[in-house]
């Protein structure tokens, strides 16, 4: 679209999970966190995983990110793709400036200094933080820190983004704006996003498809497409209707554990 943006590689193959199982511990103490989760996320698709506590949402993202190994099943990523991972906390390096943080993945990829500087400036413009490059993380607000974390993840130039409740700790106003931002960046960069949240409205606001996981063990129990045209508003009737439907399913699932 704009010539200054270096276009990241877009994914050509889906992120595919085949019967992924994860067991923690051994013997009598073993806990089944994920039980046979199969899922295809198409290139460019935005999928939200929703579930109550203990559904293994974060476990699933760790497995896809390669930070942990599944006990069973298989995860297929497009060739040569290392997914970027974002957490609920920004997880910025406090000893680095904003620029320094965004630069770390570029350094690790061996980009020369001039190219790094250009990329950092471009990424900070993307998240509207061009004027804050010299600040330190502690000088920024929570929403700004999370945008720095997004820029740092985008610096990986990966087409697949994994997000673990990235806006869970933010106030509603900031969260709304970051939803708009994420939607824009996702569209511009043709990213494939797997987004974990316990906030059903957030899922309905963002997702092409919502997937509901059961708790202990985590299994896919429900899946629905969100065919609301974009850009969306979190308070629009269409989004609310979808959210209400998913919430009902989620409550039924949570209620099952009360007996």
């Amino acid at each position, binding site marked *: 679209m704009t010539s200054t943006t270096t276009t990241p590689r877009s994914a050509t193959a889906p992120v595919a999970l085949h019967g992924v199982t994860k067991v923690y511990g051994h013997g009598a103490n073993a806990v089944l966190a994920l039980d046979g989760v199969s899922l295809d996320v198409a290139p460019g698709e935005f999928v939200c995983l929703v579930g109550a506590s203990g559904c293994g949402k974060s476990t699933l993202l*760790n497995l896809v*990110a390669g*930070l942990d190994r599944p006990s069973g099943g298989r995860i297929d990523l497009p060739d040569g793709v*290392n997914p*970027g*991972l974002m*957490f609920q*906390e920004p*997880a910025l*390096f*406090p*000893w*680095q400036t904003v620029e320094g943080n965004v630069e*770390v*993945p570029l*350094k*690790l*990829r061996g980009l020369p200094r001039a190219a790094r500087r250009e990329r950092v400036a471009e990424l900070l413009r993307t998240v*509207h933080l061009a004027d*804050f490059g010299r600040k*330190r*993380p*502690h*000088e*920024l*607000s*929570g*929403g*700004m820190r999370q945008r720095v974390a997004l820029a*740092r*993840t985008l610096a*990986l130039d990966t087409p697949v983004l994994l997000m673990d409740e990235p806006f869970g700790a933010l106030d509603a*106003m*900031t969260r709304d*704006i970051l939803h*708009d*931002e994420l939607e824009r960046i996702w569209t511009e960069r043709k990213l494939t996003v797997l987004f974990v949240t316990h906030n059903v409205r957030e899922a309905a606001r963002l997702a092409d498809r919502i997937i509901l996981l059961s708790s202990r063990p985590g299994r896919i129990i429900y899946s629905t497409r969100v065919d609301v045209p974009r*850009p969306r508003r979190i308070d629009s009737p269409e989004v609310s209707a979808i959210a209400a439907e998913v919430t009902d399913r989620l409550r039924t699932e949570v209620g099952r554990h009360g007996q």
Partner: protein
Amino acid sequence: MASDTLTTAQRSDAEISGLDALEIAGRDKETSRAAQLWAATWPKIAALALAVGIWQVVAWTGWKEPWVLPPPGPVLADLGEYVLSAALWDGLATTGRRAALGFAAALVIGLALGLAVARVRVLRAALGSMITALQTMPSIAWFPLAILLFGLTEQAIFFVVVLGAAPSIANGVIYGVDYVPPLLLRAGRNLGARRLNLYRYVIAPAALPAIVAGLKQGWAFAWRSLMAGELLVVIATRTSIGAQLTYARDFSDAERLIAIMIVILVVGLVVDAAFGAADRAIRRRWGVLDPAGQ
């Protein structure tokens, strides 16, 4: 449609910068440098004046003869003379060289030992508690053995200084590596930092504050060990600060004796302040310095 999306984009830009400005407003309150300096300095000056005052009062009471406990006036006069003499600067050169060498060796050993223990489980089981035990050992208790092993030599002093400082530094490293937030490790690994790069980009900088705290404590131990060593291991050809302190006692020169003690105190304080400044600079950069706490 095109103009519609454009205005939406502009509005959202304004919203974002507006929200940012509101949220970080009032975070940059700064008092003037001079005011900060004065606030930090005057209590110290007052305390010093109080201490000197008490010393003067004790001297006036005649509790001890003036050739045993001289009042502040003559001591400070002697200190002025001493500061201008070659004896002090020769002594400081000798003592400073020993401190620097001993501390540098302790630094290398402490870092290597700390990293090894933090990384290797067997070494941790074997050496972890031993390092802490070594730290609690008063360094002066090592001197009889050191003198037996090395005689009244530089090596004996060096040996004890290193033994005094290295465990503290190693403990700082172990503590620092142990308490790197796991989230930062996960973030670092996801960004592509593996093995040595994980150390370079995440573990080492994250452990730095604890390591500096270990260095500060290590210095305190090194300086004490060194002073004990210089009192015990007097090498006639090298008039270190500690040796001069011994001579002053031998000649019953109380004024010089106290003047030398003041020099030892000041050197220790200056180096400690340098470590403290480094520590505060790191914490300020990290945003973990509580401005009200300082």
